[in-house]
């Protein structure tokens, strides 16, 4: 049985639809991210799951019992969930130990038992030595760990995270991503994670829900999302990509400056415009005409940038107007203006709407 089920959940403010027709099922122990630009409705969805907001339509069920609908909501304090907030919401009037022990106190555990569990979880997040400190004396990363410990120690049915890393600096953010995944692997708490940062979502999640303007664009595992985006929005939002537009001409599809046999491309049918996403990493670049099975296209380097981890080239196919972005290893050096060959596997071209 699914742990958490959202059925056609909607949130409307007057005529504005913050979230529309949102349906999602989470298995026990699954880690799902809600990913999208700001204002896409992801935080609203999370707050509806937490019970801070009633949905305008649809239902939310946990363990088969309805906990939210337009007509009634189980208040947050009775949902046995935990949440980690964007601001961490560490209570400055309590020590680290008191913060972490708070939920256990509410659950009326004995003092000794609370102490034992608090110590244990503080060990897990490596904060045991700071138990008696007040939050004002902690760094951002340490406060983050306290928030994690406080949320996990109560063994929630569902753990909710609302952009928990957005207030940290870049290095710490990367470290904490792995920390969050590690804690999930350890405790296997069903988790919903809201973020606008694609790499955060990809590192932590079993599945990612990409949202845009209140609607679900695609739900898939990270590698599927990257490799097989279903919409133009997803392809553009997850990683960098080239959008190429073509039209069917006989048995070929003609693109800007090159063509491909329709039989080798997915979804190459119909009379209208055909839009494909082509990742910069999926294009090969060489001075010799490649001999493989892919398309070989003669082209010219028009611009380039060096980013340390890779080269970012702008390459225009001969007879084409717009250049394509191509990423290569830092060792593959081509001068601007030089003639090159592009190699594209037709299977790497993903049809998007």
């Amino acid at each position, binding site marked *: 049985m699914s742990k958490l089920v959202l059925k056609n959940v909607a949130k409307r403010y007057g005529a504005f639809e913050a979230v529309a027709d949102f349906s999602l099922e989470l298995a026990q122990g699954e880690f799902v991210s809600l990913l999208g630009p700001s204002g896409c409705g992801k935080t609203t969805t999370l707050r509806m799951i937490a019970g801070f907001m009633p949905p305008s339509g649809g239902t939310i069920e946990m363990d088969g019992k309805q906990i939210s609908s337009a007509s009634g*909501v189980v208040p947050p304090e009775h949902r046995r969930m935990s949440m980690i907030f964007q601001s961490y919401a560490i209570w400055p009037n309590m020590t680290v130990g008191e913060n972490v022990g708070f939920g256990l106190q509410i*659950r009326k555990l004995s003092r000794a038992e609370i102490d034992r*569990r608090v110590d244990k979880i503080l060990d897990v997040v490596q904060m045991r030595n700071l138990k008696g400190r007040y939050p004002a004396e902690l760094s951002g990363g340490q406060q983050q760990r306290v928030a994690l410990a406080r949320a996990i120690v109560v063994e929630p049915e569902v753990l909710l995270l609302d952009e928990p890393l957005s207030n940290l600096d870049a290095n710490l953010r990367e470290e904490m991503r792995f920390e969050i995944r590690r804690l999930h692997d350890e405790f296997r708490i069903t988790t919903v994670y809201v973020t606008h940062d694609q790499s955060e979502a990809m590192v932590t999640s079993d599945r990612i829900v990409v949202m845009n303007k209140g609607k679900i664009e695609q739900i898939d595992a990270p590698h599927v999302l990257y490799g097989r985006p279903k919409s133009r929005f997803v392809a553009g939002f997850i990683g960098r990509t080239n959008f190429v537009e073509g039209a069917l001409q006989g048995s070929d599809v003609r693109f800007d400056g090159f063509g491909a046999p329709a039989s080798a491309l997915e979804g190459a049918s119909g009379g209208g415009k055909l839009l494909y996403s082509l990742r910069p990493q999926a294009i090969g670049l060489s001075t010799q005409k490649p001999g493989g099975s892919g398309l070989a296209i003669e082209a010219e380097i028009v611009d380039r940038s060096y980013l340390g981890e890779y080269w970012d080239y702008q390459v225009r196919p001969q007879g084409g107007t717009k250049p394509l972005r191509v990423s290569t290893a830092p060792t593959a050096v081509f001068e601007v203006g030089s003639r090159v060959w592009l190699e594209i596997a037709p299977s790497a071209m993903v049809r998007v709407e």
Partner: protein
Amino acid sequence: MSVTAPAIDAIPVRAVRTSRFDPSWLLWIAIIAVLLFLVVSPFVYLVITSFQTERTGDFTLSNYATAYGRARYVEALFNSLKLGAVSALLAGVFAVPLAWAVARTNMPGRGLTRMLVLATFITPPYTGAVAWILLAGPNAGWLNRFYMMATGAEAGPFNIYSFTGLAVVIALYSFPYIFIFTTAALELVSSEMEDAANILGAGPWRTMRKVTLPLALPAILGGMIICFLEAIALFGSPAMIAIPARFNVVTTQLFQFFGNPVRVEVAAAYAMPLLGVTILLVLVQRLIVRRKGFVALTGKGGERRPILLGRWRWVVFGYAMFVAALAVFLPYIFLIQSAFAKAWGRGFALDNITWANFHFILFEHATAAQSVINSFVYGGISATVAVFLTLGVAYIVARRLIPFGGVLGFLCVAPFVIPGVVLAIGFYAAYAPPPLALYGTALIMILAFTTRFLPVGYVNASAAINSLNPEMEEAVRVLGGSRLTALRRVVAPLLKRNMMGAWLLIFIPATRELSAAIFLYGPNTKVASVMIFDMSEEGNFERLAALALVLQVLTLPLLWIGQKALGRDFMLRRNVT
């Protein structure tokens, strides 16, 4: 190697249930009831009573006919307006140079000046008025005596018992409002704006006139309006000075309608213009202060450097000390002299010094000591009720817990536009008759004080709550605590400081309140301010001065606590008003 999951036994969990009833609703309903009782009902009764015939309660317009039927009643209205205007202008003359010097220049003694403004601020206007009677009474006043001594003239030039005298005294004790507004505004004017004028060739004076002051103008006007309102609503100083000078203002006229026999219906009708003018001007004040376009007052303001005044700084300092002398030094010197004198007119002779006045008011007088205790008890209870009430309302409004919560917030700030005397008449009309028959009880005093100071409490409470991230409370709830748990364990501890500050900001003025108290006190509920007023009518200035000083001295420790906990300027910040 992987980290093994700690073996933790399952935590007993509560059953999931859909609860539609939130017990906190009861609290909200109680708050609404209290606000209706404190704010709405006195106001409604005030209006209704003004249209009622005495005893029968039939509808009538005769109260208005009586209230405005005589030339001298109408004249008192105009006297009040004139008094308000002159006092506000004078207060501006006192306050603006000081505010500019303290906020923007390198004048020496800026901290001292701030302290002296604070000392002015915590001096009740009626205490100031008494001191000025000692200073500028027509013959025996000290300033006149010094003048006669110095010039050998037959009489001195000063007469406190005049329109000008009253206006000066009121201005001297209301200018801190303008000072507070203006320093707050000037502290937001960035030096870069002044630099821009300098680099285009304007000298410091021209820059001040053309750039700095215009930017602070809305704040100055806003402060002057507050002074105007303060002046027309004041009871103590006019009663002590205007009545002997044989002219009336609205408040003294209201007091006479309230004398024997009490004509509350006529008083209610007569209070309407005062209420109307106040409401109108408060709206104007809000418009002026909040007007956009003065970017300097809304932004952060950037870096600020003091303007170097050169030799002029001593001139400016001299002016600051001149104002301080009028408001603090001279009044307190002669209040103290009087409090320790057998007869104040005999001056500073050693054989004129005595403790008898203090002994008298503290141990011999039938009600003087009790009146001080009453002031502190009523003030303390009112401050406590107001702080918790406004905190509750501010919380409801900020967290949008009920629809139309804004109405509650409005009710909390509404008493700001009701002058103390008018409020007292409303309370009298609403709660003096049966069934409650509260007239003369401690309760009606406490309720009236609470209502009077709700706006101060609310402004503070809502600023404090808005500084709290709601996620702090959501974290409590998601971990299983109720909203009340969140309030008790997180909100209340975090707001302790702010609540204490608000408490002091209400308590200190509540212990001096006169305009409402004078209409509502009974034989057993006299407060210190009323006691001082009575003594002034008896002309007993030595004992009066002793009592006034006792009241001031008792305030000092509170002030000290407030400054320790909340910063030196806690009483001089914008949200004081």
